[in-house]
């Protein structure tokens, strides 16, 4: 791979200092003339951080609207970013109350009703990854600890299993194979490719004989087969290229492995994967089953804390858990903000659209209205705390925000699932075409 001329020594993300080599296929093949045409060369990224139980509303939504709000308890760690974020009050997906509907967070569509939508309940991160994924090693990266919260759904309406172990995530993102291992890997890819080809031929015979009732499920298989074949050929290309080097050992130096340093490790790996253009879409989920007892003042289970019966000490535990989640996010954003965009103006945060939220409003009431939603970075002209209700006092469909986000990525749409319009959040015009394909 040809060395990038804009490489510079960066200290932003803790860990071993390495020279970040941009990973993207576009960069590796682009000639210098194209590279000169920055800033439109800088990629735009998407980071989603979500939780399963929403947020204790009094401690999440500020009392005041506009930019001069006072940060409530849960959001205090984000105070440094207050001018560059937007908190959306009164959005929802029009869902009934209860658990299980938070899986619609990123699409507004439940799996059981997804048949009515052309892209089923495909989540917005996947829609964006489809646009940005062709040029990078990993179209998207999904992470959590212990158990995922089913945020990301592919076009077949199947949820994507996140990495639950930071070590395995590390291996996936950064571990390079030895020459011999690459040889084995190449051979295996070839063998698996031949097996898939053969299954394709056998499948054609079944399909010819199949009855109409079977066709839909067989279509699912056909799509899977086609996508996997394409995926294999992509992997064959990537197998020969080195991944960027990265060191997360600092998070595991202490014998004690806490939730905090495991999430730190995850966020740092994602930050570095963004920086080196390994991927442009990432999600982080805060698990429902995780024991947050490492966090100061927390003794109970997360879910139990949401059903606190308004008991003060348990509410405090819940707010501690939620503040912890926001402070993890804040730490990551700070790091992204300290790194100048490798191939563009401003910081990496300015080129990263950040969405925090949940598909559940507040677990204590099982309400799926008034979702806690926050947008940061991404070069938007941020608005502070916004009441999204319309003149008649109705909540705004969260999908309206998603229309705006899709447009930010250059996906020209004015409609996404249950949207009724777009959320007015504008961005600097110079970034208006960030995903332009290099010619």
């Amino acid at each position, binding site marked *: 791979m040809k060395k990038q001329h804009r490489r510079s020594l960066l200290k932003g993300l803790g860990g071993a200092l390495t020279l970040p080599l941009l990973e993207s296929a576009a960069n590796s093949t682009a000639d210098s003339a194209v590279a000169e045409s920055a800033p439109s060369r800088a990629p735009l990224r998407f980071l989603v951080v979500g939780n399963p139980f929403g947020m204790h509303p009094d401690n999440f939504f500020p009392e005041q609207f506009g930019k001069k709000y006072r940060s409530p308890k849960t959001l205090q760690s984000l105070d440094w970013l207050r001018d560059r974020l937007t908190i959306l009050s009164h959005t929802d997906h029009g869902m009934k109350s209860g658990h299980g509907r938070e899986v619609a967070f990123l699409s507004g569509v439940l799996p059981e009703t997804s048949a009515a939508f052309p892209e089923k309940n495909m989540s917005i991160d996947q829609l964006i990854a489809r646009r940005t994924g062709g040029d990078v090693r990993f179209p998207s990266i999904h992470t959590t600890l212990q158990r995922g919260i089913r945020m990301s759904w592919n076009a077949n309406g*199947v949820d994507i299993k996140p990495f639950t172990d930071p070590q395995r995530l590390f291996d996936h993102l950064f571990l390079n194979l030895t020459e011999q291992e690459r040889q084995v890997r190449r051979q295996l890819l070839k063998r*698996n490719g031949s097996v898939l080809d053969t299954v394709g031929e056998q499948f054609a015979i079944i399909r010819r004989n199949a009855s109409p009732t079977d066709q839909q499920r067989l279509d699912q298989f056909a799509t*899977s087969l086609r996508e996997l074949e394409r995926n294999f050929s992509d992997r064959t290309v990537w197998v020969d290229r080195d991944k960027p080097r990265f060191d997360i050992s600092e998070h595991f130096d202490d014998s004690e492995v806490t939730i905090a340093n495991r999430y730190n490790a995850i966020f740092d790996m994602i930050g570095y994967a963004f920086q080196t253009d390994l991927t442009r879409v990432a999600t982080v989920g805060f698990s429902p089953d995780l024991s947050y007892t490492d966090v100061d003042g927390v003794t109970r289970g997360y879910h139990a804390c949401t059903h606190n019966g308004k008991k003060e000490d348990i509410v405090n535990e819940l707010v501690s858990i939620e503040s912890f989640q926001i402070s993890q996010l804040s730490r990551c954003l700070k790091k992204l903000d300290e790194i100048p965009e490798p191939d563009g103006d401003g910081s990496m945060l300015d080129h990263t659209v950040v969405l925090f939220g949940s598909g559940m409003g507040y677990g204590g009431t099982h309400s799926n209205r008034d979702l806690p939603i926050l947008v940061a970075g991404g070069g938007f002209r941020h608005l502070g705390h916004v009441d999204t209700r319309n003149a008649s006092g109705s909540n705004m469909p969260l999908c309206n925000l998603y229309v705006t986000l899709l447009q930010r990525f250059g996906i020209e749409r004015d409609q996404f699932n249950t949207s009724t319009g777009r959320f007015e959040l504008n961005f600097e015009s110079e970034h208006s075409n960030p995903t332009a394909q290099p010619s």
Partner: protein
Amino acid sequence: MKILLGLLALCVLVQQDVSADIALMKTHCSKCHSGADPEGDFNLVELKQTPDEDNLEDWIQSLEKVKSGDMPPADENRMSTAERQQLIQFLRHRVLLHEERVRRPLRIPPRRMNNRELANSLRDVLMIEDVGTQQPLAMLLGDNLYKGFDTHGETLGFSEYHLDQYVTAIRNVLDATILVGDRPATRFYDVPTAKLAIADTSNRARSEQANRTATSIELLDLKKFAYFTNFKTVPTSGRYRIKIRAVAVDRHVYDSEETGIYDGDPLQLRVHLGDRVRDFDLVEGEPQELVLDEWLAAGTDLRLTYPTDGLRLRGNGNFKFQYRIAHDYIKANDPELYRRVVTEEVPRSKTRRDNPEHWVHWTGYWQGPRPRLFSATVEGPFYAAWPPQRQTALLGIAPDAANAAEILKPIARRAWRHDQVDEQLAPIVKLVQTQAETLGDVESLKEGILAILVSPSFLLINPDEGTPEDRFATKLSYFLSSTVPNQRLRAASNAGKLDSFDEVRGELQRQIADGGADELLREFPRAWLQLDRINFMAPDPERYPLYEKKSINEDMVNEVLHFFRHAVRENRPVPEMLAGDDSFVNADLAKIYELDGVANDSIFRQHTFTDGRRGGFLGMGAFLTLTADSLGTSPIHRAVYVMENFMGIEPSPPPADVKIEEPDVRSATTIREVLQAHQSDRSCAACHQAIDPFGYAFENFDPAGAWRDHYQPVSTGSNDNTMRKSNAVVIPIDASASFMSGAEYSDIVGFRKMMKTRTNQERFVRCFVSKLLLYANGIEAEDYSAVDAIVKESSRHEYRIIETIAAVIDSPLFREARPAVARSE
């Protein structure tokens, strides 16, 4: 013919009565169910004259509500019994006629097999004991559940991710089954005490805690595991002989009330071979030699543990607090030793010198029950033949890619569950023969088997292949055993020996007797009662410590499984499962249920309840706990659960714009007072009048499933402990309610009696049948009349379980074909 005549008679009847019965409805229903804002959001005009696809659900709902007596509601009812019967007949016949006319397609779309079925199917296609101790399937995407069921086609889905992982996982299984190269040499590993090591599964221990001596080590608690430092992981796939010398120590020194380990339970040593587990009972006295002879795959971890749910009763459940038992015991039984420790050792200690009771001083005096390990040996890999028998069983002695078609055919027949495989096998044979040049015969045949196993013909259950008889055998096999059908079952089906109700019943009885239906007996109740949810909201560990410390959730799940298995094997009437007077309990559950005379061990035994409060599903901790919050109980959650899982009623969820009041445990209001809104607010009441009475009956059961007469005293301040003593308020429980039909109960005893009326028994049977169909078909059964016919058949056999299941299997909904007219003669 009978059916046809019946239908004719029915038509005549309906013809006569149409106008009369519509008039009947107008008279008795239209007062509330008419106009722009009808009760329950249901207007009579929606029924029109006859059912159509849009209003069929309303017809069925109307029928169910009139049948149950909920409609017309008692306080408005002026309908005579005869009129009610007439109306039921009318509604029912209309629904049946409609479905007869519409004739929905019976064919069920194919679905992906779930991970459980995949593991079993691979095992049986490849004829091995399990998919392998290297846990090749552990990396698969977990299956999502639909109402607790892992067989729901739409929910299972199929994606590139699945296929990608199948290729890797199945290749892994094959690599450990079909071995290439030279026969590996057998080695002998001596594991003396010095090579036995102990580690902590939670990785928290700073140093080894193993009571190590020159000749032995001990497993002190359930968080520890032992391993062999010179044989941590199996190096080569093959058969291994493992011998372990061990003994039980101090089995009965401490009182079982202190340790939480029952005197009647054996002390065990558990050997983990990957995820394969072997338990050995240990006795005190002379060391015993435990011998294992197992096929192990390369990469398998070997570990030894002490399986117990005890030793967690003190402190926060961490094992160290148990050492205080040693303090208490010595203080009471050995004053001389006690004096010496307190006067000589405690003052010299580095910590807690001021507190002789602290556990830290007594770790060296622990006499709790524990396994002691002396040494071990491992020998292997052995092969009775080379290549190993499991390989030659698949490929033959000297496999040649030129014979790929013959070699692969029997494998494809097992995997694809039918015989006409030649055409489909052709591309796979071609693959093998192309690859043979570079990979050699064995490896290329392996590629062929992989192709057979990642083909949709294997991975999808019920694709349109083979004869209808093959498909029926496949479906029956996955229903009973969650695996591919064996040769006997396929032959029986193809010979027409599974065509009648009696033949199906015979097959079912045989499989239940010989273990073939074990998978159904275990997985169906787990799914039906949604037991996966039991700890979604576990009882608060501070208020209900026993539940957490003794893992009572596992006992509760096992109660359900033992009970269900027993009920099926005894072929009891289905309704007895709901509210019969017995269940299965062990010593842990006896504590929760406050039972006397239960043996002091963990074995589940049948128990008959005499107080009318428990017995059957309605009295089980599993149901009572999984429907409760961690600190409180919700009659609504329990009601919805009872309706959905036992009564077969789907209450509609609250509308999206309803503002739900958050429970406030600080106030002295009862849940009943909080829920008053359901009665006073008209929009809530319409549904909740029908829902709530199914839940109030259980208010006497707390979140951990124990009986209570009062709510836990509540305090109005934030500090529980101080308030509890002073001005705590004690609120007695009111578990009474009345249904819209006017039927009333004053407590759980009355409610349970009510569940035994004919209407409710029939509802429960119908619900059981629907759940069986959901498990079998992976799709909700929507055909009212076909389900009705199964319930009728069941009633002809006193609703006995086996006959009911047989009626499900024999139904067109399971067979996916309507019976030939000749068969109804």
